[in-house]
């Protein structure tokens, strides 16, 4: 577990400085957010619905732009990043959503391959890489199944496989277990933990306090757009 200890010399992967986000219409979703997430950390972002958790992730993905303050991801200042560099930023950020966002007409294999095809990767490499990541998430046998033939947990694992195709240094998950039975949620969390164990930074957003307690050693709590707690704990359940 030593690798998750955060020292001063650990490279900072995500940095928020005095970040404020006001949506058009005056909705203040985040304010005074100051935090750093370092390489190899496994971080939970906890908060009630509407607290600003998704907004936090959207700022990291540069889907939204901070109204004030600075967001730096992987050394890039996102307020200064050029439009044409955004896709390359996102290739370093694997994302998973509550609703999986798989293409219903495609098989598990095709869904994962899609992410590689649209990012200019040769077919030869796709044929090697897709089975590898499907195997990683334990879906080697389900490559030809379409989403409607898979359980929620399996669909989320396809989405996770897709998030892993570019070997991103950071994985971001927005309520990844929100649509999954509790037992299967544990599977997904354990997978994320395993991914974290090999050095990937993982940020998981959830409103499930128990889940966060169980799996994480750092919990950032957001309430009404403000960070109200940032606790490093004993190390959760461990692996």
């Amino acid at each position, binding site marked *: 577990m030593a690798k998750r200890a955060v020292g001063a010399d650990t490279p900072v992967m995500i940095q928020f400085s005095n970040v404020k986000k006001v949506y058009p219409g005056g909705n203040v979703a985040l304010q005074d957010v100051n935090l750093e997430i370092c390489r190899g950390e496994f971080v939970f972002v906890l908060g009630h619905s509407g607290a600003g958790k998704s907004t936090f992730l959207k700022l990291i*993905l540069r889907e939204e732009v901070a109204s004030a303050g600075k967001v730096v991801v992987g050394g890039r200042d996102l307020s200064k990043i050029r*439009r*044409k560099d955004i*896709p*390359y*930023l*996102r*290739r370093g950020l694997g*994302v998973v959503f509550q609703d999986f*966002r798989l*293409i219903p007409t495609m098989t598990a294999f095709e869904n994962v391959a*899609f*992410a590689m*095809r*649209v*990012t*200019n990767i*040769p*077919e030869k490499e796709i044929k090697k890489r897709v089975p590898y990541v499907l195997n990683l998430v334990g879906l080697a046998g389900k490559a030809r199944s379409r989403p409607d033939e898979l359980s929620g947990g399996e669909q989320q694992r396809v989405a996770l496989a*897709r998030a892993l*195709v*570019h070997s991103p240094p950071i994985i971001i998950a927005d309520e990844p277990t929100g649509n999954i039975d509790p037992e299967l949620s544990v599977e997904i969390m354990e997978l994320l933990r395993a991914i974290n164990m090999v050095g990937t930074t993982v940020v998981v957003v959830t409103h499930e306090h128990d889940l966060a307690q169980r799996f994480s050693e750092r919990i950032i709590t957001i309430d009404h757009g403000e960070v109200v707690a940032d606790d490093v704990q004993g190390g959760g359940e461990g692996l």
Partner: protein
Amino acid sequence: MRLGSFSYLVKQGWKNMGANRLMTLACIGVLTACFLLTGVAVLLTLNVGRVVDYLADQNEIVVTLLPEVEEEQAAAIGEQIKGVPNVQDVVYESKDDAFNQMQSMLAEYGNLLEGFERIFPARYLVTVQDLTIIEDTNARLAGIAGVEKTYVPVDLAGVMIAINNAVTYGGWGIVAILALVSVIIISNTIRLTVFARRKEISIMKYVGATNAFIRLPFFVEGMTVGIIAGLISSGIVCAGYYFVMDFLNGMYNVWILKILDSFLTLGQVWYFIVIGAVVAGILIGGVGTASSVRKHLKV
């Protein structure tokens, strides 16, 4: 972009057309109709322009000289006529020429004109450069000393100018309107595809696809629709032109044949029609797609 990726995206564009089959067909149909009307308008405009040019060339002012004007004086008048602005060409017919011409026309009736040798006045046949100011030119010619009368088919000229203007402005006006309609139709079709594909598009953005990758299939779709409409409509226009010309030629009417002479032949225009329609299809498909993608595909 790798070639493999490019062909993948092109296929995606065609797949989108297939997924939206009805809309695609409707779009091609409407576009073909627009292109057909455009083709007809363009051909009419070009040909009417040529007919008017032809008639203008035929359009001479006949300047008759007073009977007492003799050859020497007539030559001086000829110089004066040449000096009048807008005069393009001048042909002189002496009294004898006029007589001989008339006699040859009446040859089969024998020596009908015997004893009338000197009654036909000498005349100048004057063609003008610009038909629109023929009346002004005519007035100047009538004012020259020694000129008896001038004959000018002013009415015909005026009518032809009016027709030419109407057809030209109307024709290009119709072309402009139809082009706009075509762009809107393509734009709308692409908007529907963007809507149908919004889920894939959002996934593409999250996994880091570049704008070019996201947009290319839509341009492929829009331009392919444009090209297909261009090919179909130009084929129909060429076939239609062939049959209309064939029909008119078959009427064996001297006037029609004369006018047909100045028409463009199918051999002269078919490649112009086909290439023009395909290029127009690509342009309109591209512009239509771009306007739709700009509005509905925020990246």
